[in-house]
C-alpha cells in the first residue's frame, strides 16, 4: 500500500487536483444544471471513448497511428443514416457490394493460380496492372448503369436533408424504383463478379511471396459462396425486402442501422488493413501518409455521395415521444409514452442524448474489457501490446489478429458514428473534431492503456461540457463582482491545455505505464 502511494504520487496528486476542480465547478451552479452538465459530459465522453478505444487498440498492437479514424467514425454515421432513412437504397446497394467483395473473398485461391501461370519477366510486371485496368474498366462500365435508387445532392427536394426531415416527421418519400439501363441484369451481375475476381487477382500478384499452403479445400470458397448467395437473394427479393424494412418500426430500423454501420466499419477496417496497411509495417512513417490520404479520400467520398450540408438523423420512436405527460417526471411515465425528455431535479434531460448514449458507452466499455480479459483473442492482444515479438515467437497467426483488431477498432469508431448521428447530426467535419477529442483523451489517459482511454474520454467530455455551461451562466470570480463567461473557443482550448499540462507532468498520461 505504502509503496503504491509512493510510486504513484504524481498520478494521485493530479487526480486529486482534477477532482477538486470538479467539486469547485459543482459549487458554482445549481443542482439541476450540474446533473445535466454531468450527463452531457458523460455522453460526449462515451462517444469519444468509442473512437479513442479503437484507435488505442490499433496503435497499441499494430503500432499504426490511424489518422483516418475520425473519418471512419463519420463514414459509420453516414452509412447508418442511409440504412435508417433510406432502407431502399441500402437494399439496392447490397447486391453490387457483395459482388464486388466476392472476388476478394477468394484471396487464398490466387496464389495457387499464380503458380500455374508461367510468363516472361516483363509480362509478369505488366500482368497485374493490366488485370487491374481491365477490372476498373468493367466496373466503370457496369456500375453507372446499375440501378440504385438514391437521392440527389444537387436537388434540394430530393436531397439527404429533405429525406431526413421527412423521416423525422414520419413520412418516407418513396423514391422511384431504379431499373437497369442499357445492360441486361444477368450480364451486369456476372460482369461484377468477374471484374472483382480479376481485380483482386491483379492486386494479389503484387504480393510476390507465395504462401506455401497449396491445398485448396471447400473452406477457401465458403466466403465467396456466401457472398454470392447473399447477393443473389437480395437481388431476387429486392422489392419485398425493401417493403419489409420500410414497414418496420423506426426502433427496429435503428437497431439494424446500428448493426449494419458497425459491421461495415469492421469490414472496411479489415479490408484496409489487409490490403493497404499490411505492406507498410516496415515503413512506419508512410503509414501516416497512407492514413492521411485515406482520410482525405473518405471525406471526399462522403461529400460527393451525401453532399456538404449538415443534417440531423431522426431519433428512433422509442426516444422521440412528445405531448401528453411529456416531459416525463418518472420512469413509468417515460416508459408508457417514450418521452424524448424527462425531468430530473427540475431539469429537462434528453433521454437519447444524455441517458441512452452514456449507458451504451458503459456497456461497450465492459464488453471490450471482458473481451480483453476473458477471451483468447483478448489475451493475444494484451500480450501483443506488451511485447509483439514474443507473440510472434509463440507462433500465433499475428496477421489474422492484426486484421481482426483493425476491424474491431474501426467498427467501434463506426458504432460511435451512428450513435452520435441522432444527437450530433451529420456533417463533413464531424470526424475531425471528434478525432482531436479522442487524441486528447488518449494522451491524457495513456496512449495504449484501455482504462486510460475511458478515463481520458470522460475527463475530456466533462471539462468541455462544464465550460460550455459556464459560458452560459458565467463564473463569479471570488471576492469581486465580475462574472467571467468562457467563450466557445475556450472549450477545445481547455482540454488541449489540460493535455499539455498532464503530459508535461506525466509524459505517459495518467494511467500509461512508465518506461
Amino acid at each position, binding site marked *: 500500500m505504502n509503496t503504491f502511494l509512493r510510486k504513484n504520487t504524481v498520478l494521485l496528486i493530479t487526480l486529486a487536483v482534477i477532482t477538486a476542480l470538479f467539486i469547485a465547478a459543482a459549487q458554482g451552479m445549481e443542482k439541476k444544471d450540474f446533473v445535466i452538465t454531468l450527463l452531457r459530459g458523460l455522453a460526449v465522453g462515451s462517444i469519444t471513448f468509442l473512437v479513442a478505444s479503437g484507435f488505442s487498440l490499433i496503435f497499441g498492437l499494430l503500432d499504426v*497511428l490511424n489518422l483516418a479514424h475520425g473519418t471512419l467514425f463519420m463514414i459509420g454515421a453516414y452509412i447508418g443514416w442511409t440504412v435508417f432513412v433510406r432502407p431502399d437504397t441500402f437494399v439496392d446497394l447490397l447486391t453490387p457490394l457483395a459482388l464486388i467483395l466476392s472476388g476478394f473473398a477468394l484471396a487464398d485461391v490466387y496464389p495457387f493460380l499464380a503458380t500455374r501461370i508461367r510468363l516472361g519477366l516483363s509480362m509478369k510486371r505488366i500482368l497485374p496492372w493490366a488485370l487491374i485496368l481491365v477490372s476498373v474498366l468493367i466496373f466503370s462500365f457496369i456500375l453507372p448503369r446499375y440501378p440504385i435508387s438514391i437521392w440527389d445532392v444537387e436537388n434540394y427536394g430530393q436531397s439527404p436533408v429533405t429525406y431526413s426531415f421527412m423521416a423525422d416527421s414520419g413520412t418516407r418519400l418513396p423514391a422511384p424504383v431504379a431499373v437497369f439501363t442499357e445492360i441486361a441484369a444477368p450480364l451486369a451481375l456476372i460482369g461484377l463478379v468477374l471484374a472483382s475476381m480479376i481485380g483482386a487477382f491483379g492486386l494479389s500478384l503484387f504480393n510476390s511471396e507465395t504462401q506455401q499452403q497449396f491445398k485448396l479445400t471447400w473452406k477457401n470458397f465458403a466466403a465467396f459462396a456466401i457472398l454470392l448467395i447473399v447477393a443473389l437473394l437480395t437481388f431476387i427479393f429486392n422489392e419485398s425486402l425493401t417493403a419489409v424494412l420500410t414497414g418496420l418500426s423506426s426502433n427496429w430500423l435503428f437497431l439494424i442501422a446500428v448493426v449494419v454501420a458497425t459491421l461495415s466499419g469492421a469490414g472496411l477496417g479489415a479490408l484496409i488493413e489487409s490490403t*493497404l496497411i499490411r*505492406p*507498410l509495417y516496415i*515503413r512506419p*512513417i*508512410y503509414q*501516416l*501518409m*497512407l492514413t*492521411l*490520404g*485515406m*482520410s*482525405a*479520400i473518405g*471525406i*471526399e*467520398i462522403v*461529400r*460527393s455521395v451525401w453532399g456538404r450540408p449538415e443534417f440531423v438523423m431522426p431519433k428512433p420512436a422509442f426516444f422521440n415521444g412528445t405531448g401528453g405527460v411529456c416531459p416525463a417526471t418518472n420512469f413509468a411515465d417515460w416508459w408508457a409514452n417514450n418521452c424524448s425528455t424527462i425531468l430530473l431535479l427540475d431539469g429537462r434531460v434528453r433521454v437519447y442524448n444524455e441517458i441512452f448514449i452514456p449507458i451504451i458507452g458503459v456497456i461497450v466499455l465492459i464488453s471490450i474489457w471482458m473481451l480483453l480479459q476473458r477471451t483468447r483473442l483478448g489475451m493475444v492482444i494484451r500480450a501483443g501490446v506488451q511485447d509483439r515479438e514474443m507473440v510472434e515467437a509463440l507462433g500465433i497467426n499475428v496477421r489474422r489478429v492484426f486484421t481482426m483488431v483493425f476491424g474491431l477498432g474501426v467498427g467501434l469508431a463506426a458504432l460511435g458514428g451512428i450513435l452520435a448521428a441522432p444527437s450530433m447530426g451529420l456533417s463533413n467535419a464531424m470526424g475531425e473534431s471528434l478525432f*482531436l477529442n479522442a*487524441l*486528447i483523451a488518449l*494522451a491524457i489517459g495513456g*496512449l495504449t492503456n484501455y482504462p486510460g482511454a475511458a478515463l481520458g474520454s470522460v475527463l475530456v467530455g466533462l471539462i468541455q461540457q462544464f465550460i460550455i455551461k459556464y459560458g452560459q451562466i458565467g463564473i463569479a470570480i471570488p471576492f469581486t463582482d465580475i462574472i467571467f463567461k468562457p*467563450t466557445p*473557443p*475556450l472549450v*477545445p*482550448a481547455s482540454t*488541449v*491545455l489540460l*493535455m*499539455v499540462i498532464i*503530459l*508535461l507532468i506525466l*509524459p*505517459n498520461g495518467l494511467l500509461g505505464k512508465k518506461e
Partner: protein
Amino acid sequence: MKKFLSSNRASLITLLALILLPFIVGLMDGESPMAVLANESGNAKFAQGLAIEIFILALYALSFDLIFGITGMLSFGHSMFFGVGAYLTGISLKTLGLSLPATLGLVFIAAIVQAILFGLVLPRVKGITFALVTLGMGSVFHIVVMSSELGPYTGADVGLQGVIAPAFISPANERIRFYFIALTILILVYLLYKRFVDSPTGRVCIAIRENEGRARMLGYNTFYFKLAALTLSSLTAALAGFMHTLYQPIVSPNVASMGFTVTALLIILIGGVGTLNGALVGAVVYRLLDFGLRRYIGESASFISGAVYVLFVLFIPFGIVGTWRAKSFQINQGWQRLRKLFG
C-alpha cells in the same frame, strides 16, 4: 571552377531555368521580356505568382524537414511556426504600423521565443508524446487566432485582411521583384540548410535521429542540438509566414491549423524525408498537383489528391528524391542503354 560547374550542373540548370521562367512563359504568350519586367498582367505574371507560392511552401517544407527528416522529431504543431510569422507580420504592419525591417526583426524574435517554448518540453517528452504536446500547443495557437476577442487584430475565422505590403515589393505592381526576392531567399536558405546538415551540428542532429541514446552516450547533450534545429526551423518557417502575409491578400487561419502541418508532412513525404532537395521537389509537385486538379477537376480534387498520396506511399515509398537516389544506379544504366540505342 570547371569542377564546380560540372559537379553542380543540375542545380545550376535549375537555377537558370528559374531565373528565365517568367520571361519564357511571357515569350510563349507573346509578351516581350520588357513587358514582363513591367509587370503587365498575363500568364507570365500568373506563373510568377504560382512560383512564389511554391517558394514559400518550399521554405516551410524545408523547415519541417529539418526537425522531422533530419533531427527525427515529429512535431504536429509546426504550422504554429509559420502562423506566428504570418500573423505577427500582419499585425505589425497593419495595426502597429511598423516598418518592414522592424517587422522582420519582431518576427525573428518571436520565432526564437517560440522555439524555446517548444524546446522547454523537449527533455520531458519524446516521440509520439512530443507529437501530441506540440499538436496541443499548435491547436491552442490556432484557437487563439480564431477567437472573436482578437478579431480586430487577427480577423478571427475570416482571416487577416488588408495588410499592405510596402510599395516596392507590392505583389500586384512589383511582382517580378517579389519573385526574384523570394527566389533569392529560398536559395540562400537552401544553401544555409545544406551547410547546416553538413556541419558538425547537423551531423549530430542526424545521429540523434538515428539513435538518440547512443548520441548521448558519445557525450552530446542532445537537448542543445535539438534546440538548435528547432530554432533554425522556427526562424525559417516564420520567414515563410512573413513572406506569405506580404504576398497573400488574406491570411487564412488555416495556416495555423493542424491541416497545414499535414501539408508540410505530405510535401516531404512526396519529395523524400530527410533529403533537402526532396522538400523543394515535394513543394513543386504538391502545389502543381493541387493547382492542376482544382483547375481541371474542380470540387472533388482532394479525392484525387488523396488517392495520389496513397499510390505514392504504396509505390514510391521513399519519396521522389529518396527513390531517385536509391535507384540512381539503375536509372543511369537506363540512360546508357538509351544513348546506345540512338548512337
